[in-house]
Structures are given as C-alpha cells and as structure tokens.
C-alpha cells in the first residue's frame, strides 16, 4: 500500500536508528533522534531566551515608552534596551535602525520646538518662528519615545528568528492558521518586492516614466499595481488547493518537531514584565506615577 510506504519512508528519516550528530550538551533532544538542523537552538545570553519572552519584553517596552508620560518611561526603556543590546551583542547593528528614525525625529523636533500651541517661553527666534522651552521639552520627550520604541523593535528582530517565534507560538497552541498567515506573509513580502522591481523595470523598458513630476509618478501607479495585485491574487486558488491536499483543515493538531527551551523563571519574568508595564501605564494615566 503506497500510503504506508510513505509513512515508513518519512519515519525513517526523522527517527533514524543512529541519532544524527548529537552535539554534547544536547541531552534531552538528541534522544528523539532529530537532526541537528532541526534542533538548532539559539545560543548566547539574550538570544537563548524563549522567543515569547523576548516578544513580551519588546511589546512591554513599546507600551511603557508610549504609555508612561514624561521622562521616566522613554528614558528607562532606552536604558534597558541599550543594556539588552550590549548583552546580546547587537549594538553595532542598531545604527541602521537609529538612522531610519531621522525623518520622523527631525519632523518631531522642528514642528514641536517651533510650533507648539500655546507655548510662550521663547528660547530663540529664527525669522518669524520662535523656539519655545515647552515645545522643546515635548519634542525631546517624543524623540526619546520614538528612539526607545525603534530600539526595542530592533533588539527583538535582531535576536529572534521568525521561524523560532512561529514554532514556539504553535507549540503553545495558537493553531496552524495564525502561524501560516504570519509565516507566509513574511515570506511573501520579499518575493512580491522583487516582483514589483521586475514590473517597474519591465514598464520602464516600455517607456513608462517613473521619475519626474508628481503627475508622471501618479500615472506610474496603475501599470505597477495592476500586474502585482492581479498576479498575486491568481495564486490564491493554487495555494488553497495545495494546502487542502496536505490536510490543512484537518481537525487535529499538527505535531511540532521543534521545541524551544522555556522555564518557570522565564514564565514568571513574562508575567512580571507584562503586568508591570500595564500597571505603570495605568498609574501614569491616572496621574499616580511617582517619577517625573
């Protein structure tokens, strides 16, 4: 019977008699006989944390940076995130993310320092505009908030592999649908990006002007968006059939081969950080946050 032959073949590769290269220290997992590339567990002080822990830390940082008003929220997130980046050894790669905030930071500083409504404490004047102390304070706080948020995002995405995060979520029972949606979206974006570049180049070769005045660029939208949207929607049917043929809507849980280390310490930390940040934001909104 062909079906059983397939079953044997697949179980043969996964559960081979000889455990495939159990590196020392890979104790419990090697027993299952999974090959090393499936088992690859991130190493390093911060990277080795469970992906969910890192995600809770990133979300809590964003919440505190935006939700706790004044200086304390953004500054504490900035300090904590910078410390994490140093420990994780990603501080060098952060530069790119900091540079990406320049347009909004410039906008925040200019608009708020010079055009803060109702502020009268003039610091200096440039032509008809006056920079005010109140506006400058608000601008600095907003800048710190944006920086703290950008760094928290950067640290998460630099230390966490998407596949690890999704595998861990599926272990916790989020279901294959959400996992598929997020994983598939992340994989589709670069593919569609390169398709967009191909389309733009193909249309340019036919004489479409994608640079120049606004009117010309506006006329460039339709020949770009049309083939991209219709081309990718045409794939929906094929993918649906392919997934259904692989028992995507079967009413049973899929076995997740990769499990990432987690512990009661980390679980406690997640609750502590998550609830702590919510409490801090609530206290700040209620006006009972003790620090400036």
């Amino acid at each position, binding site marked *: 019977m062909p079906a059983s032959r397939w079953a044997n073949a697949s179980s043969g590769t996964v559960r081979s008699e000889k455990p495939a290269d159990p590196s020392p220290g890979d104790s419990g997992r090697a027993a299952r006989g999974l090959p090393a590339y499936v088992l690859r567990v991130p190493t390093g002080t911060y990277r080795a944390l469970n992906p969910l822990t890192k995600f809770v830390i990133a979300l809590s940082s964003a919440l505190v940076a935006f939700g706790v008003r004044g200086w304390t929220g953004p500054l504490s997130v900035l300090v904590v995130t910078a410390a994490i980046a140093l420990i994780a050894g990603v501080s060098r790669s952060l530069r790119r993310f900091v540079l990406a905030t320049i347009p909004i930071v410039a906008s925040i500083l200019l608009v708020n320092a010079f055009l803060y409504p109702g502020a009268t404490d003039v610091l200096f004047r440039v032509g008809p505009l006056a920079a005010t102390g109140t506006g400058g304070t608000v601008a600095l706080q907003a800048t710190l*908030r944006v920086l703290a948020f950008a760094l928290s995002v950067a640290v998460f*995405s630099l230390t966490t592999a998407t596949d690890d995060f999704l595998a861990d979520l599926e272990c916790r029972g989020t279901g294959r649908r959400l996992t598929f949606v997020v994983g598939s979206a992340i994989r589709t974006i670069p593919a569609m990006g390169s398709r967009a570049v191909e389309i733009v180049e193909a249309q340019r070769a036919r004489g479409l002007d994608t640079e120049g005045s*606004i009117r010309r660029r506006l006329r460039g939208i339709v020949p770009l968006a049309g083939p991209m*949207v*219709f081309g990718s929607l045409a794939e929906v049917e094929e993918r649906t059939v392919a*997934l259904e043929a692989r028992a995507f809507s079967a009413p049973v849980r899929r076995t997740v081969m990769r499990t990432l280390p987690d512990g009661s310490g980390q679980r406690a930390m997640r609750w502590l950080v998550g609830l702590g940040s919510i409490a801090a934001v609530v206290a700040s909104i209620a006006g009972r946050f003790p620090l400036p």
Partner: protein
Amino acid sequence: MAWLSRQFSTRVIVLIPIAIAINIVLGYTVQTILKLPIYLDSIGTILVGVLAGPIAGALTGILSNLIWQYAPVIGGGTIGPFAITAGVIGFLAGIWGQLAVYRSRPASGTQLILAAIAAAVIVVVVVIPILNNPAYTDPNIGGYPSWVYTAAIVIAAIVAVIVAGFIYIRRDLAGLWVAVAGVVTGIVAAFVSAPISAIAFGGVTGSGTDLLVAALRQGGSDVMSASLGQGLFSDPIDKTITSFVVFIVLGGLSGRLLARFPLGERLLGNRAV
C-alpha cells in the same frame, strides 16, 4: 462562533498573507519609491474585509502593521502603533462587504445621471461640515490657514467630478456606494489615527503630511486637532482612492474565484459566474 469560523476558510487563510504583502509592498512603493503624498497601504485589508468579513479584515489590518514594524527585513519606522487604525479600517470593510456595497449595479439613463449627481453632492456635503467645524474656523480655538481651505475645496471639487465621471463612464451605480464607503472609512480612520499620532509621535509621522500639521499648528490648532485636521484632509482622499482601486480589482477578478469566498455571493449578486 459559526459566524467567526466562516470568515476563516482555507481560501481566506491563503488570501490574508497575500493581502498583507500587497499592503506592505504597495504602501512602501507608493510612499518611498514613487514618493507620493498618499498611503495606499490598505488595499489588501479592504479586499479581505469585503471578501471575508469584519474580523478577517481587522486581523489583516492589525497583522499588516505589526509585521511591517517587527519583521526583520522591512522594519517600518512608525507604522506599528497605527495597527489600531488598520484594524478599524478592516472591520469597516467587512461591514461594507456584508452590506454588499461593492456589488456591481449596472444602470442607464436618468437613474445613472441622478446617481452621478448624488455622488458628487455627497462628496461636497461630507466636506463642508469638516471645513466648517468650529475647531478649524473659530480663530479663538484655531483655524486653517487660508490656503489649506482653498486646497481642500479644490480637491473636493476634483474628487466630486472624478466620482461622478466614474459612475457615468462605467455605467454602474455601485460607484456611489464605493465613494461613500471610502469617505466614511477615511473619516473614521482620521479620528482613530489622530490620538495615536498625538500621543506616540508628538503629532507628526515623519512623512510629507507633516507640512500640513505644521501649517495647522501655525494657524493655532492644538496638537490633537492639528493631527485630526491633517487626517481629515489626507485620509478620506486616500481611502476613497483605495476604495475605488478595490472595486476595480474586484471587477477584474473572475466571478468563479470571488464566489468561493465567504461573502462572495453577496458581492456578486446576480452577476453571471
């Protein structure tokens, strides 16, 4: 529960990641490569909402912005907190889908002309209360600098003419409802976005629309109403364009494909499959 699970058939689960990728890639291309002063980052969200329902649409919007922000490759600057707005847009699109707003309604003769005129009137009627809002005209509270006022009227007139022309040329009453859906979505999006922008980013977003915020601030608006003023200016235009793009995309897809989505039958009506 059945209402919820019907929105997430396998076909919808396949559509959502593609819609998210369309949102991100098209939004990025339009804002960064073509450098146009609109967003166009909710076409996928509205598409899923119209085809599948409110919850599927909201999920698409929220995930789009979160993935745009947190995915290692793309890394959007300030898009993450606006996931709330995107979710609301997707939810509204689901309601439009259940009301069959995007169903094609062929018509001719006087009916068509009346619909075209009605659409133009609606655009103008929607714009007037926004412009007459005391927050923008009362000099004690704030007020648009005069050029913003003129620009808004010119844009409203252009939009009214385009919408009316679209209905007349395509001989389709649906254009009226599509325009209404776009404008309403835009106004709601503006009201949801303004506090996010004010609380998280000091009222600006780091894009071309900040000039408008600056102009409103100089006119004396406070942080929130300057952001709201900018949103009420950009969002209805952006969402009306998006709404028409989605309508054109739906018209270009085969009925056979559309009918298989949860709200496909409402969308198609009596159209031959």
